[in-house]
């Protein structure tokens, strides 16, 4: 189980990403969802309906912030204006932790709006960890880094991705948001055993797990978040739970978004996998029967 310093002492169950097509349903029906994850950048605005909806949802639910624009691997360093906007939103949401991606994304002020891969070198690990230490100190809240899906590897790699993720998070002393779908996608694209990845990561740092679907093409997989979770990803999830214990779990569904009920039913499948695994871990404890 994650050290409480990586989760702000908060134990969360199953959540889903808060997405615009579900706003009306959530506000009207108030479904029994444990928590919602928000894309931080969508609410880094001065005012307007988006913030009003967020405030209303926060009256009923725990919200956790997940960013796509910190870019801790940027060679130019961190964008302090971005961190200031993030901190303002952190104060508004009372999120127990925040997460973003172990990636880079902009050069000299020009932004890719993508989660771009880093070379797995000791030098890049050191520089990225330095940025993350600055970010966590500035934001004054537990920070977790998510492993991205990737489609390319660099010629100068010196270690595996799972070694790199662990190295950066240890050096920066931050948590991990383990995305088991991303592990699967990258394992297909780069030809490694995804279980090696899950088996290696420092389990005490895993503050949260992401699950999602993807799109498979003939020669590669793209992380589109527009399908249900496939069985091999559930297997990775089960192994992650075996190693990490009960961990806040979130389903991402970002394109071709179906009804709220369909997304929520998919997310709830994680409870079956989680409870089965936890029962195997600790047969003496009473986990909800399924």
């Amino acid at each position: 189980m994650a050290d409480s310093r990586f989760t702000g002492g908060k134990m969360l169950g199953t959540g889903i990403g808060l997405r615009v097509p579900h706003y009306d349903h959530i506000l009207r029906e108030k479904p029994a969802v444990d928590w919602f994850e928000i894309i931080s950048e969508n609410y880094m605005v001065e005012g307007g309906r988006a913030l009003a909806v967020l405030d209303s949802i926060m009256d009923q639910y725990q919200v956790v912030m997940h960013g796509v624009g910190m870019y801790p691997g940027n060679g130019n360093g961190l964008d302090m204006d971005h961190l200031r906007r993030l901190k303002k939103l952190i104060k508004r949401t009372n999120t127990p932790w925040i997460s973003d991606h172990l990636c880079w994304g902009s050069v000299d002020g020009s932004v890719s709006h993508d989660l771009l891969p880093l070379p797995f070198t000791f030098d890049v690990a050191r520089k990225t960890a330095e940025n993350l230490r600055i970010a966590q100190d500035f934001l004054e809240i537990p920070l977790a880094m998510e492993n991205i899906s990737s489609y390319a590897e660099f010629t100068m790699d010196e270690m595996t991705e799972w070694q790199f993720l662990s190295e950066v998070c240890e050096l920066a002393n931050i948590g991990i948001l383990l995305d088991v779908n991303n592990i699967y996608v990258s394992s297909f694209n780069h030809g490694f055993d995804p279980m090696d990845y899950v088996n290696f990561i420092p389990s005490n740092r895993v503050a949260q797990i992401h699950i999602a679907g993807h799109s498979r093409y003939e020669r590669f997989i793209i992380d589109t978040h527009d399908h249900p979770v496939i069985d091999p990803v559930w297997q990775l999830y089960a192994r992650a739970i075996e190693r990490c214990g009960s961990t806040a779990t979130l389903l991402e569904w970002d394109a071709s978004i179906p009804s709220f009920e369909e997304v929520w039913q998919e997310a709830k499948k994680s409870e079956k996998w989680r409870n089965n695994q936890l029962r195997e871990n600790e047969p003496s404890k009473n986990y909800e029967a399924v």
Partner: protein
Amino acid sequence: MKQCEPWQKDFFQALTLPLRGSSRKATELHPSDEGHSVEFFSIAEKWIKPNQVLSAAERLELYHRQYWYRILDSLAEDFPVLRKMSGDQVFWDLIEQYLLTRPSQSFTLRHLGEGFAVFLSKSEILNNQQRRWFEAIARIEYAYMESFEALQSALPQAADLENKMIGIQRHVRLLHLPVPADLCVDWEDFAPAYHCPHESVSVAIWRRPSGSSGIVRIPNEEACFLSTLAGGVFLTEFFTQLPEPHPEAAQVSSWFADWQARGWLCIKGEQGLNAFDIDEPWQEKQAMSSQAMSFPQP
């Protein structure tokens, strides 16, 4: 700012090179049989490791496609009226040229169109008339985005009008346009523009209590008043400072009543309650970025 890593500079440079080949054919950009440039291959070979099924360039191309598909879709979505007026071919040419010369400078895709109107005013693929109209349309369409996410300042009560500095809410975007581009919303194509008098107009775009946007034409005299008010004034002094001739008192009262009813007035410097009728179902597109997007079949 720290020095950028050479591999990042090269990688980003490759992303911003024009779309080519099958990647381009999956978009609405005019098709081209031209392959990737020598520069693209050279960057790929230098930094990207091939695997058993994909070459270095093919792997880099996956990112190249995603970069372009994301920004093309996002910008196109924000300028639907311009697309209708310019026609698809010109529209996509303009969008591509704009994005080639001006990569995103903001953390959010909502701001991608920030410089589009100025770009259109100088575009060499447009004639003078198109430049004038398209710039005006783009200014209107970008103002919707600015209005959508603007700060809500405190609404003044009757007593505040006497003793507090009054201004205009930031979500009210007052535009002075060289042509009546607000008419284009109702036009099916650009043909009516050729017969439309080139009169300058003022329009205001604002955010309603539901969060949806409104647009209204503002007569010149009223627009002049609003512009002065936007900077913040004490109303007791305001009327003594106005240039002659003053509008009729009844006219001014009527304007103030309209502005107050629409929620345009604010107390300068006081943040207001960001309250909306969120129970009202949302009909409009919500300008939000996301890391994920669909990926056309290669």
